[in-house]
């Protein structure tokens, strides 16, 4: 962690689908696999419930990174939800990149209920990335930052 970021405590929102990733996060917990407390999880029924509005709103309110986790393609509890989510997020992330927002601030990762280790590793690497990017200044209400 770079020294100059010592004071920087990022806000990171993780959307997790109820059936795979939220359970994966639970497994990470029961296996005591640590990841930074900066990550806060919001439970949604399926990754296809995540509206781009939610992600933009998080940034608006001062989030420094948003990650979405869902079932692996082919394993969606609702059969096809994550396929739609995948297309939506790909386009959204591409647009954010196009607008000059660092693309490391958004991520999608497929985490199954059995992948507690992957969940914790994913969160560790994502948080590390956000620390390296520093504070989100390009998106968001600048008044929140003062």
């Amino acid at each position: 962690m770079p020294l100059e970021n010592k004071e920087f405590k990022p806000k990171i929102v993780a959307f997790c689908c109820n059936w795979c990733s939220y359970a994966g996060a639970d497994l990470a917990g029961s296996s005591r696999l640590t990841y930074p407390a900066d990550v806060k999880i919001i439970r949604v029924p399926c990754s296809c419930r995540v509206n781009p509005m939610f992600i933009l709103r998080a940034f608006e309110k001062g989030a420094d990174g948003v990650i979405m986790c869902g079932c692996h393609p082919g394993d969606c509890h609702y059969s096809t939800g994550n396929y739609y989510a995948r297309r939506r997020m790909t386009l959204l992330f591409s647009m954010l990149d196009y607008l000059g927002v660092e693309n490391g601030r958004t991520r999608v990762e497929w985490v199954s209920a059995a992948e507690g280790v992957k969940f914790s590793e994913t969160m560790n690497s994502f948080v590390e990335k956000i620390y390296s990017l520093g504070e989100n200044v390009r998106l968001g209400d600048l008044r929140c930052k003062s």
Partner: protein
Amino acid sequence: MQRIGVFVCHCGSNIAATVDVSKVAEMALMEPGVVHAEDYQYMCSEAGQAKIAAAIQEKGLTGIVVCSCSPRMHETTFRKAAERAGLNPYMVEIANIREHCSWIHKDMEEATKKAVILMRAAVAKVNLNTPLQAGESRVTKRALVIGGGIAGIQTALDIADAGYEVDIVEKTPSIGGRMSQLDKTFPTLDCSACILTPKMVEASAHEKITIYTYSEVEKVSGFVGDFTVDIRKKARSVDMNKCTGCGVCQEKCPSKKAPSEFNRGLNTRSAIYTPFAQAIPNVPVIDREACIKFKTGKCGICSKVCQAGAIDYEQKDEIITEKYGAIVVATGFDTINLEKYDEYAYSQSKDVITSLELERVMNAAGPTHGHLERLSDGKAPKEIVFIQCVGSRCADDRGKPYCSKICCMYTAKHAMLIRDKYPDVNVTVFYIDVRTPGKNFDEFYRRAVEQYGVNYIKGQVGKVIPQPDGKLLVQGSDLLDNRQILKEADMVVLATAIEPNPDVRKIATMLTASIDTNNFLTEAHAKLRPVESPTAGIFLSGVCQGPKDIPETVAQAGAAAVKAIGLLAKDKLMTNPCTAQADILLCNGCSTCENVCPYGAITYEDKEVNDHGIRETRRVAVVNNALCQGCGACTVACPSGAMDLQGFSNRQILAEVDAICR
């Protein structure tokens, strides 16, 4: 404004060791809407639940937040506790401060801070919760089985034995399906008819089972527990109540040129026919395409010879409408068309046959009365070549990408039976892999090799060239010896890939059941819900879901029956109230949501709306709560925000986002 109670659980030391629980409770009181907060050793215990109940009643709480373990663990517990205390169970939210906080963080200050934020998010959400009522829908205690093969028969018998009415709809004139066409069955070599016909008789005699043969499903509407189905009973031209099944009509019918479907077109049948001797019902059908009376108006011999007066040329198709609680699909399979595999000369030589045709040749009731002979000249073959994987495991569009699963075993069976009955016949099998997992299966295959001397060659056949003398020149490779083989054969048998019955597409569309790229019906979960369709109330039996042999089919048929019985046993279905809802004032009627719904739960209706005084008829989305599973795909697809998900509404999730980012 809500009156919210926050309950922070210590979970012994699981939470309390890293999270300052009393601090969380103290901070909760500063949140909007929170009128009560406390912490306790074990919230999920009797005493903990009693504390929640007491607070609900004493403080008149309208919503509660429990800061504890994962909702996957105790959400139901706390919802029930709230319900007992008179609070709507959906006014309960859980802040997961154990798995997502105390167990993964070591620093108390940090963990406490995070727990407070998680509590805040949950409080923010509860502030926007609304009481939800689980809906109820009735269950019609009757099941429909589509397809009357072994899968359909077994499912119907199991459901009927549990005391429920079952209807079987079968497209052909008799039940029995593919299994009735088989000669012997592996690995025990019992005669297929001997084990199948008793089941057919049992089904037809069962007081709870109604069989509609020569019938097709025409239309399906409704949803789980309450389907309405139109069944087209095609005109049989024979009165089922009068016919005695004596068979004289078939004997006397002068039109005997129609290819026999039952014998795979290897011989012919009369225009009035029952597909096979043990057909159930034993009532013939007039094939109007082949019948002279129908073609020319002259003949009428069957009517003259029928002593029962059962022939009815005027009979028309009949539509039967019936209600069902559950539908089981058991539409089975067929072999693929070999048009694109001309290298095997299937269309050029009568002596190149499929394995299913060989079953008919070997069967005593078949075209050769069970004698193994060449179909071209009736001579006894001396050299038979079997080719495996014809159209299976094929990456291009000529065949199927999957393994048809049953071919290795039936080829071993055929090879063994031929060597047993005609020891002077040489049998060669060209294979890519021999796949025989299954009880006593590999032993069976090894017996064919070791005991019966079947010559197995690792390698495919490149082409079969019919020779002027009627022989078949087979050019194959032996990969183990690294040589190309040229072999003269009298007969070539192709282990043709199987594919789902082509009708299944139409049926799946009617049922809104999903189907994969190979036209197999998709199961709700590949591992954990293999006999259910993702569409509630639709169950899968047999090969319509994927290639299977008879024992697997029967096992799955039973499993599908149990799932159907589980549904029929309920008087009412409680529906998940966390379903999508369309705000008809905002709905554009654009059908985008309909296109992403995996359950066919969204339909469009023309509805009278009153939009701030403007009365008009609009095309709007309507969600069927019995079908909706609450995934939320539609909510994001909807551009106007008309579609929202109860329990996970846009505003609820945004409130959580805001609370976390505050």
